[in-house]
């Protein structure tokens, strides 16, 4: 009896009940849907392109672009090819996004922690900031920063300055900057490596002091010399150029951050930070009350409670959603195009408009943002792994 159904060969009911059949069937259905959708869209694309007498191809990227770009991280002249123009756009996007992510982390975490402050004013400011900024569209905020904040700075003739170190006018912001781009990168790298080295030295010193109750002098000395070395390198080794106001308006020397750039950066940072602040707040709240109480009963000061006990545990909750905030910032950077910052979307728009190749240009754009977001995800996943509970 048990072999009845299989003996009779094909049995529909038994097959429909068989999980293995459904596993395969779902795969097949998915595949068919995928192929149908793809062929529909590709066929539609093909039909439209034939109708307009166009052929798909990326050869146009080698043609000279012919338009100029306001600012660029790499060398660019108007008769360079389109691919280089797009490269300039990508460079501008990257400068905006990297600075944006770094500053967003600082501002967002600070605002998030401030919402736990016992200081009434600090607490209220943090809450008001989040409430206000989160509820206004980013595009409006971009225009606000561009026209209402940086647009009201004085003209170059009456520019204002900060102890002759930084200059502000309605063209942009001028700050001290290392003499060459290579030095600037070196400086940033040195800071990063120094910070990591200092962290491990500090941990080593703490461990020794916990174990023996004393000592750790060599480590303290190493830390001090590391700091001194970094300080010397950063002050003397960077060939700093300082902006100088010119009689009658204008600035020479230093690094000019165009008004478009600072406005885009400010808007992106303050917008995204509001979300980050909420994520940080949620992360801190997810740490149980017992942890706070336990830390306080050990006699830790409030600052140390946060730094040593609560925040490290909150990180587990904070990091995953931070990933999507960083990706949002990256994608939102394309809105900077509305206030004339020549990032990649802006350059791509000009490119497809001049060449009449929206499909190809949009494919390039989509691939670019996809790759940027994947890189962010990769880094954040590594970070996430590092802060998870280690089962021992």
């Amino acid at each position, binding site marked *: 009896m048990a072999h009845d159904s299989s003996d009779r060969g094909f049995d529909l009911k038994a097959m429909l009940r068989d999980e293995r059949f459904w*596993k395969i069937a779902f795969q097949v259905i998915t595949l068919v849907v995928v192929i149908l959708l793809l062929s529909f*869209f590709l066929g539609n694309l093909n039909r*439209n392109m034939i109708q307009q007498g166009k052929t798909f191809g990326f050869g146009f990227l080698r043609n000279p672009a012919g338009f100029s*770009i306001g600012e660029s991280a790499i060398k660019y002249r*108007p008769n360079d090819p389109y691919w280089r123009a797009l490269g300039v756009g990508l460079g501008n996007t990257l400068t905006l996004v990297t600075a944006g992510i770094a500053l967003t982390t600082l501002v967002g975490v600070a605002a998030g922690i401030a919402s736990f402050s016992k200081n009434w004013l600090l607490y209220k400011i943090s809450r008001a900031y989040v409430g206000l900024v989160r509820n206004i569209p980013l595009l409006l905020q971009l*225009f606000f920063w561009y*026209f209402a904040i940086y647009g009201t700075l004085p003209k170059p003739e009456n520019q204002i300055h900060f102890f002759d170190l930084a200059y502000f006018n309605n063209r942009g912001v001028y700050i001290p900057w290392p003499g060459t781009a290579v030095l600037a990168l070196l400086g940033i790298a040195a800071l990063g490596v120094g910070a990591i080295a200092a962290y491990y030295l500090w941990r080593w010193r703490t461990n020794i002091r916990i174990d023996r109750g004393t000592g750790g002098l060599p480590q303290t000395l190493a830390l001090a010399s590391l700091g001194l070395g970094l300080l010397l390198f950063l002050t003397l080794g960077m060939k700093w150029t300082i902006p100088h106001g010119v009689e009658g308006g204008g600035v020479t020397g230093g690094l000019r951050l165009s008004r478009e750039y600072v406005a885009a950066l400010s808007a992106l940072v303050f917008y995204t930070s509001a979300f980050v602040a909420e994520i940080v707040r949620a992360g801190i709240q997810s740490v149980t009350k017992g942890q706070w109480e336990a830390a306080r009963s050990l006699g830790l000061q409030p600052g140390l409670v946060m730094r040593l006990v609560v925040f490290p545990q909150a990180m587990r909750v904070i990091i995953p959603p931070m990933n999507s905030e960083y990706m949002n910032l990256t994608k939102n950077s394309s809105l900077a195009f509305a206030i004339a910052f020549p990032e990649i979307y802006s350059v791509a728009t*000009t490119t497809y408009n001049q060449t009449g190749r929206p499909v190809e240009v949009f494919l390039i754009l989509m691939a670019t943002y996809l790759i940027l977001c994947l890189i962010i995800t990769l880094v954040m996943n590594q970070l996430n792994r590092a802060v998870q509970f280690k089962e021992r």
Partner: protein
Amino acid sequence: MRKLGLLAAALGLTLAACGGTTTTATTGGEGTTAPVAGKSRLNVVKERGKLICGVDGGIPGFSFVDESGKYSGLDVDVCKAVAAAVLGDPEAVEYRRLDSTERFTALAGGEVDMLSRNTTWTINRDTQVGLEFAPTTFYDGQGMMVRKNSGIDGLEDFEGKAVCVETGTTTELNLTDQMRKLGVNFEPVVFQDADAAYAAYDEGRCEGMTSDKSQLVARRSTLPNPDDHILLEVTMSKEPLGPVTVNNDSAWYDVVKWVTFGLFQAEEFGITSANIDTFKGSNDPNIARFLGEEGTLGTDMGLNNDFMYAVVKNVGNYGEIYDRNVGADSQFKLERGQNALWTDGGLMYAPPFR
């Protein structure tokens, strides 16, 4: 099982998302406004009973929306003329405001039937972008607006200075060409939106604002202190502006082309919206053909034979349109100049209606 279902759903979603973007990039393939292979736009417009015309909507004198939401201007009147010719009703137009980067994709995707939006005729747009250019309705040149007290007399003075410009325009390219020729290093500040560009110029982000001269004059009138700004005595380029249709649709292109020519021809004949009825039953065979009383010029094109009657009666001839919107009867008082009829030393010339 559940995992598989989720996977299928996720795949479907991603695909839908990808597909969504692809279709926007190729600007659609469905809906009533999409081009149907083998079917002319002319039939689409007739069936719809309405012309969808892409305009700028922000340039006084060319296409401008007033407080009551009504469109007016030279470009708008061209839309009205085509609607009058095809549908017999100059008001059977739906206007779509397009910015300079949207316009070609909107046209190619069939979102609009035609553009009447200060579009410069260039060989690249004609051959590579896939457009057909109807006769030029306004011969313009690129100019530069500066503040009166800026001390700038010519393009050479722009070394290290900023110029605001609208993206996706020929002006953006011409500006670069001119400055390259002069070896002047300037800073372009490129806006997607003309309103933002003029706002930035007005509050001092840029020393100069460049665009077609007619547009600069028109826009200057909307600035807070129009008298503080002057146009430099420099013409950077030829800017022939006119209506545009999409490639590979001769029947529709012919209609737009000949309605535009008809506007010039009516002026040449001296036919205006006021006196057109006195030309009825004219002994002049040229006029009789033009107004559809003889021959089959209109029906050959798929229109009513008296399509030009409907156009001129409702919209007027080119001279009337010009004077009303940008010429003597408008606030701008632009000279006819190159835009006069060829018989008056201008460039407006229509091939014979026969």
